[in-house]
């Protein structure tokens, strides 16, 4: 038994007649305001094919302005639909009169949207300076790129921004150069964000950049490092992937390049380097998260670094930063043959991990890639090591699996701080052991 709904909503009897243009126009006008006030999301439970067909009838009525979040499928598959306020009564009565069970998934869509907006605004406050920038929160690509410009503007004698190339989708790829002068001094390279979903890394990169400028002239060790070497820091190594993690898929890892002959997108940038390329520790399937790509350096993001490293010719330490599982790794990943400098690298790693742990007790394991994590072919630091960059390391930052890629923002600064101690250990060693 059901009541007649009050106007101006749609009368259920008219649903059966299909196509009430007046109502369509009214609703379209209401809908163009782009507000979700009073809209609900219903979950409809269809127990038999007849019910599925009934719901499909609703789909046929554009004047209802229904927005199916999960469209009708087979029986037993719930259907989720956003129903504008004006159509609510009619839709519910229609369902009830056809004995179709439903529940209200979202009571008031607008309040959910408002909540999300508030969250976003809280997270993405546009900074006016590097002093008011929020280092304890995750940022978008635009915010990080703005931060870089602010940092350079505030420290023009220490920091400059270099564009080393463009991403597949045409975004500029930037590297910050920290230098106190000289010509092609020996240099240390740091990169974060090569795998876009590893958000703690880009966030730490931003913190490292600020730490460097804050420490120069104050911390004797960092000052002597920069008086003798340059530091290059690439914060967003995979900008296309990073943008995608914000807009569409938080768990995106690869680049966004189109793969010929496949519907699947992207190449794993940490399997695309020319070191053991194409072996078992990578996939030849474009749909795989570890797809190595059609050939080594096929990815612009990788090629840009390769070109930079080769033309610079004087990089002495190369550190590529990932997350998670709390590891400090050195070559090799593509072979179980020990690197020639294995013992020295192991000693450095041991000291770096001890330094990291000294701050909050965070435990890291260390060792070669292949023994400590898994076989990986075409990896970054295997290539850099084979190029002669002896102090080549990869970090896997916090945590050990509770939050994984979704590390809470309140861990950004502690993670960056402890990791910095390990980085300082490696950089000091590089400074003190020229080769």
């Amino acid at each position, binding site marked *: 038994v059901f009541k007649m709904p009050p106007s101006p909503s749609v009368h259920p009897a008219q649903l059966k007649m299909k196509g009430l243009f007046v109502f369509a126009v009214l609703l379209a006008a209401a809908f163009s305001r782009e507000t979700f006030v009073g809209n609900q999301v219903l979950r409809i439970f269809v127990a038999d094919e007849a019910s599925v067909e009934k719901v499909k009838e609703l789909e046929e009525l554009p004047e209802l302005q229904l927005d199916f979040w999960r469209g009708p499928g087979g029986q037993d598959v719930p259907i989720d639909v956003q129903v504008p306020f004006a159509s609510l009564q009619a839709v519910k009565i229609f369902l009830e009169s056809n004995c179709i069970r439903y529940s209200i998934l979202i009571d008031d869509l607008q309040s959910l949207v408002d909540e999300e907006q508030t969250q976003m605004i809280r997270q993405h406050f546009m900074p006016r300076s590097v002093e008011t920038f929020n280092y304890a929160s995750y940022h978008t690509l635009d915010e990080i790129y703005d931060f870089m410009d602010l940092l350079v503007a505030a420290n023009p004698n220490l920091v400059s921004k270099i564009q080393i190339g463009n991403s597949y989708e045409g975004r500029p790829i930037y590297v910050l150069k920290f230098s106190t002068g000289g010509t092609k001094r020996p240099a240390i390279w740091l990169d974060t964000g090569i795998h876009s979903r590893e958000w703690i890394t880009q966030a730490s990169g931003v913190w490292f950049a600020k730490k460097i400028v804050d420490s120069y002239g104050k911390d004797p060790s960092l000052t002597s490092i920069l008086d003798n070497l340059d530091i290059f820091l690439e914060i967003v190594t995979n900008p296309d992937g990073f943008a995608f993690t914000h807009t569409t898929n938080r768990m995106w890892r690869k680049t966004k390049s189109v793969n010929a002959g496949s519907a699947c997108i992207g190449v794993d940038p940490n399997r695309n380097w020319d070191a053991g390329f194409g072996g078992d520790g990578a996939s030849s399937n474009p749909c795989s998260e570890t797809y190595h790509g059609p050939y080594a350096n096929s990815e612009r993001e990788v090629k840009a670094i390769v070109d930079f490293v080769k033309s610079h010719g004087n990089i002495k330490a190369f550190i590529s930063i990932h997350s998670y599982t709390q590891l400090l790794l050195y070559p090799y990943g593509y072979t179980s043959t020990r690197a020639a400098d294995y013992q020295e690298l192991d000693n450095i790693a041991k000291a770096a991990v001890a330094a990291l742990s000294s701050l909050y007790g965070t435990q890291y394991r260390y060792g070669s890639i292949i023994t400590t994590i898994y076989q990986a072919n075409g990896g970054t630091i295997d290539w850099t090591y084979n190029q002669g960059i002896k102090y080549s390391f990869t970090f896997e930052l916090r945590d050990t699996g509770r939050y994984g890629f*979704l590390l809470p923002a309140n861990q950004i600064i502690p993670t960056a701080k402890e990791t910095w101690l390990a980085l300082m250990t490696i950089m000091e060693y590089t400074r003190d052991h020229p080769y």
Partner: protein
Amino acid sequence: MQRQSAARLGPLLLLLLLPLAWGKGPSPPRAAEELQVSNRLAGQAARVALHYLNYRLGSPSALRALGQVRKATLKTIPGIGHKYYLQFTTEDYKSSLNVGTCLATVFYLKRKPRPAVNINCTYTKDQKQIREDDYSFYKKMRQQTKPIIGNDIPDSYGNIEPALEPAWALAVAGSSYLMWEKSTENLGYFMAQVKNVKQWITKDDSIDFDYSVVLHEIPTQEMISCHLRVIWTPGHPLKVKYFCLSENQWSESEEGSGTESGSTNGIFNEKEAHF
């Protein structure tokens, strides 16, 4: 005459065979290898043991995470499989505080679908507190008139709404069953995110949740979507049904002790465990 001497020989033969039964006789060659504590396979096996423990304990408040591997040995049993002997520390899943040490064996058999686990742990967390926490979650869920629903737990920024935290913990417990079943010597899992949770209000004593979870698979790096149905009454084994997008049928946990694939002696108090 012959029968009489045979009868006398019987017990004598038995006596001769006894030492073999005790294992003093010749046995097949078993290669035993001590592993470095940083070895990835050791860590992986320890995690498998903990998935099993978390599932069997079936308690959202008693979940454990891996601390550090203290000792690891690998025995290769030719034609049968690889058996890991492990000693490792554990942390409380929520607080990360150390909550005790475990001894475990994890047996990857060539012919069985899932690893056989034996695990014993010491426990430093207050048992009474755990039971109270579990019961208070249970009571709150039983009292719901509107079913609990949620999305993206944690969200992109790692936030978990406090009201949804116990439901998330129950998802971890339920996912532990699935991760244990799916783990192999080379494939490991983490629960990356609860995409969706919906409570079913039931008329019986249990609480009943529907989950969509995303698992992170190592070393493939794939994100696997699974659907999980978890039915729980405190103090009873978790009932878990799951369906992952790469499979074409539901898998279900056994009722009862299910000791054929593993066992846990649960909790005991011992200061020092020797291996």
